[in-house]
Each structure stands twice: as C-alpha cells, then as structure tokens.
C-alpha cells in the first residue's frame, strides 16, 4: 500500500535536513475538487452556525423581551451602554489575566508531561490513559467536583489547606478566587493538550533525534533545537485552541466555582455574556457583548496567525 511514497518521504525529510518552511506549497491543480471537499463542512457551518449567529448578532441592535413579544430597534445603544460601563473594563482585565494564565499553565504542564511520557519506556500506555481520562468528566459534573474539593464550606482539600492555618477563602478573597478558577480551567485542558503533544511527539522521526545525539548534543539542547521546533505546528495549534478555550469555553467552570465573585473579581467577558444572556435574560446587552468579544478574539487570532505563525516551521 504505502511502499513507494514512504521511501520518498524519508528521502524528502533528509534532503531537507530540517523541515524547512517552503513559502510556496506544492499543490494539486484541480479547480472544482477543493470546493467539493469543503462543501460538507461549509454547509453544516452555514446552517447551524452562521444563520443562528447572524440572528444573535441582529439581536445586538435590538431591545427585546425574552419571549420576543415586543421588539424595538435601538441601533448601537446596547454597544454604547456596554462599553460605557466601568465594570466592563474590569472584566477585560480579569479576562486577560485569566486567559493568559490558563493557556500558559495548561500548555506548559501538558508539554512537560508529554515529553516525560515520551521518554519512559515502561508504563507508557498506563501513564497516557491515566492522564487522559479526567477529560472524560463531563463539564456539567466537573463543577460539582470542584465544589466538593475546594469550596471553603464543603471542600475536602479546602479543609486541609485551612487546617494548616492558611486562610483559604476564595469566596471573599479575589486573588484566591482567581487562582481557583485558573487551576480549574487549566486542569480541564491539560489532558487535551497532553494528548496532542503526545501525538505531535510521535510524528517526530526518532532518527533525527538520534542523529543529534550522535553529534553529541545534550538532552536539553536536543529538546530545544530539534524537538521543540518540530513540535511547533502542534504548539501553534494548541496556542490558538487554548486561547479560544480560555475566552469562550470557561463560563461553565466560573459559574460553578465562583459565580464571578467575590464582587466582580472573577467576572470574565464570556461569563458576563453568559450570565447576562442565559441567566438574566438581558438579550440585547448580552448579544452586543458577544459581538465585541468575537471581534476581540478574531483580532487576537489574526495576530497569532500573522505574527506567531511566522515562527512556526512547517515541513
């Protein structure tokens, strides 16, 4: 099946030496085929994402009761109010701290663990399994677990921490609350990152690393000069995914663990969107906030693709 090409593949790898980024990729010349390939995904995206999303965005210029009984066009009023709210700036700051901390911790720990798992010979499978299955805890349930562990009133771990004399009270201490939601959010994402780092490490040819070892490169040097650059496409993928995760997918955790409190210490932008829209049913404000949030994250992602991806070397 895969005989001839794999020989070519090896040849290709080694004539290149390192996986050089080729600015112009070799492609197939077909005209119609790419559209056919894209069609299924685009169709589903258009029906189940773009159409409802456009409705949600339309909502951002309306004032409407939840049941849709009375609707009034208000132009950019919702945006003006949201942006004029001093609390919104606070949310932005909270989001920034939260997202950067969450993405960094989740990725760094996962990379460390993946590299270690790659290194050991015995027990590889067991380590991998144990590391991945916490991911299988449904988010709807994970919130409950956090409460049982860290809530100062009922958590076992919180109880242990307090019994050492440390005043662990994230319910009233904003910094502790932030630590708590960052660890909860990072914890949930470690398994995910770990798995893709493992997959990424698997596709690095061992022969390359061996060659470097023969040249006398130490372990740390081998990692930073060969493994890490070769892992860059995976790392970049995870960077984008983790940023988006921290921005958009964490309101459930915050809702279960701190509810945005104490005060507004852990109220991130997406938590505000969720709380205003889903819980408090203030549809216009919530929609305006999601539009702003989308613009921020699209901008952020565009920057990542434009500037960070330059440093990524593809084959």
């Amino acid at each position, binding site marked *: *099946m895969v*005989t001839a*090409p*794999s020989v*070519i*593949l090896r040849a*290709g790898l080694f004539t290149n030496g390192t996986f050089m980024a080729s600015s112009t*990729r070799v*492609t*197939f010349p*077909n005209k119609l085929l*790419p*559209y056919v390939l*894209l069609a299924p*995904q685009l169709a*589903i*995206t258009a*029906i*189940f994402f773009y159409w*409802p*999303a456009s*409705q949600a965005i339309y909502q951002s210029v309306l004032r409407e009761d939840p049941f849709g009984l009375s609707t009034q066009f208000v132009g950019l009023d919702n945006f003006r109010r949201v942006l004029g709210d001093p609390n919104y700036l606070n949310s932005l700051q909270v989001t920034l701290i939260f997202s950067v901390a969450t993405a960094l911790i989740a990725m760094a*720990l996962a990379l460390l663990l993946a590299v*270690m*798992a790659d290194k*050991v010979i015995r027990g590889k499978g067991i380590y*991998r399994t*144990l590391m991945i*299955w*916490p*991911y*299988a*805890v*449904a988010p*709807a*349930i994970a919130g*409950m677990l956090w409460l049982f*562990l860290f809530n100062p009133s*009922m958590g*076992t771990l919180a109880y242990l921490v307090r019994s050492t004399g440390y005043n662990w009270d994230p319910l009233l201490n904003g910094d502790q609350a932030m630590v708590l939601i960052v660890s909860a959010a990072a*914890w949930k994402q*470690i398994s995910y990152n770990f798995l*893709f780092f493992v*997959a990424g490490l*698997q*596709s690095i*040819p061992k022969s390359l690393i061996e060659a470097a*070892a023969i040249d006398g490169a130490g*372990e740390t040097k081998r990692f930073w000069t060969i493994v890490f650059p070769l892992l860059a*496409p995976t790392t970049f*993928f995870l960077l984008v*995914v983790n940023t*988006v995760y921290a921005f*958009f997918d964490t309101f459930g955790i915050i809702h279960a663990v701190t509810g945005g409190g104490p005060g507004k210490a852990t109220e991130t932008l997406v938590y505000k969107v*969720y709380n205003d*829209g889903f819980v408090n049913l203030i*549809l216009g404000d919530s*929609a305006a906030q*999601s539009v702003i949030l*989308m613009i921020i994250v699209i901008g952020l992602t565009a920057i990542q693709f434009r500037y960070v991806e330059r440093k990524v070397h593809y084959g």
Partner: protein
Amino acid sequence: MIQNNPIGRLIAHAILIIGILIVAFPIYYTFIASTQSLQEILRPPLSLLPGGHFWENYSAALFGGVGRIGGVGVDRLLFNTLVMALGIAIGKICISILSAYAIVFFRFPGRMIFFWLIFITLMLPVEVRILPTYKIMVDLGLIDTYTGLILPLMASATATLLFRQFFMTIPGELVEAARVDGAGPWRFFKDILLPLSKTNIAALFVILFIYGWTQYLWPLLMTNRNDMSTIVIGLRKMISFADADTEWHLVMVTCILAILPPVLVVVLMQRWFVRGLVETEK
C-alpha cells in the same frame, strides 16, 4: 537507540506520577466518595482513603438506583450517548480532514476566506445562540432525532485546524513525487495522507468521542422526549444542590460508571499511538 540514562528516566517517572496525581485526583476523589455512606459524604471533610461501602453502593446503583432515571432504562441512555459520541467523532473527523485537505493541498479563489469562515465558528458558544438555533432545529424537524443531536455539532474548527497544522508539515516533495508517479488527489489522500494522519486521527477521535459523550446543554435543549436523553442529563437529574436531598453516594457511583466508556476508548486507541510513522515502514 539514544542512550537514556536511568536517572533521567527515574525523574521522568516521578514527574509523571506527580502529574497524574494532580490531573486524576478529582477522579480518585469521586471514586473515594463512591465508596462512602451518604452520611459520611454529607459531613465533610471526607477521608482520602476508600470507605467500606463499595459493594453496597455499586450494587445499589447498578441494580436499583440508576434505573430510576426518568422512567427510561440506563441502557437506553447509554445507547443514545454512544450513538451521539460516535456520530460526532466520526462525522467531525471525516468532514474536517476533507476540508483541511482542500485548504492545504489546493490553490483556489477564496481559500483563506473559507478557512476563516470555518475557524470563526469557535467563537460563539451554544449558550449564546440558543434561541435562533432552536428555531432552526424545529424548522428542520430535528428535535428529538439523532441527526439533530449529531449533525450540528459536527462542524468543528478545531479538527480542521489540527489537520491543517499536520498537513502543512508534510513535505512538498511528497506531493511532487506523487504527481510524478501519476497519482491523483484521491490516491494521494488515500495512500499517503490518511496513513500518515493515523496518530492525529486517533488523538482527535479520543477527544471528540469524549466531547460527544459529555455533551449536556445541547441534548438537554434539543430533546423533549425522555427516551432521547443522554447519560449526563440522567446524571445531572440525580443531583440537587438546594432544596432536595441528593443521594450523593449513588451520584458518585454513576459518575464513575459514566466515565468508563470514554476510558475504554482511550485504552483501545492506544494501539494507534505507535511511535515512528516513518520508522515502522523500515
């Protein structure tokens, strides 16, 4: 082989064990709780060692407790969840590998626009667009159907992005060689790309299966019949924080049982994580 010094490996083991302790602790804790009596759970702090109610709780959950979920048997809930998880995982992988293939290996007008169109879908969670989405589901007659549970969740930007990232690392010489050999796009895809993507597909399958398995809000909103419900909803139904008593010990058991199928998937997928896609061909 690289000489791998034993001390380094020992450190690696130590780090892994610490990592697992942190990452898996909540699961361990759930397990501990599932072996305690309700009284012990209700009066924290809970011990960190298993209690003596393992058989009692598990048999109560398996042969009595769990059967109570909404008048529908647990087997039905598990079946629904399995269909949903498999459908989402397989469907997502299929459509995103195709679209990533188109984006990386073809040049055509609007290529980047399409990529971004797919990519932006990451940025508006279901909770925010529930009202309009529900309307579409009703108009298409998808409420209370497996299609309704699966299809809308199949569009995935992450999977497309992952395949794009991986495809970009495939050297251009390979495509060139394939073209010289007279292989068309389809043969290249089938004979070269697919086998090379094995590890990534396995990783994605695990992640997506779990994603589908743990869905809560989507099935909650899109099904109005109890026999279309899923296991996570069933589990959630057992838990009350405020005004009713909750059989926490049985909830914990059900939690553990609900984790088992995804764990099985992880274990089965291990085979696919074989080192050296290149080396194996030697």
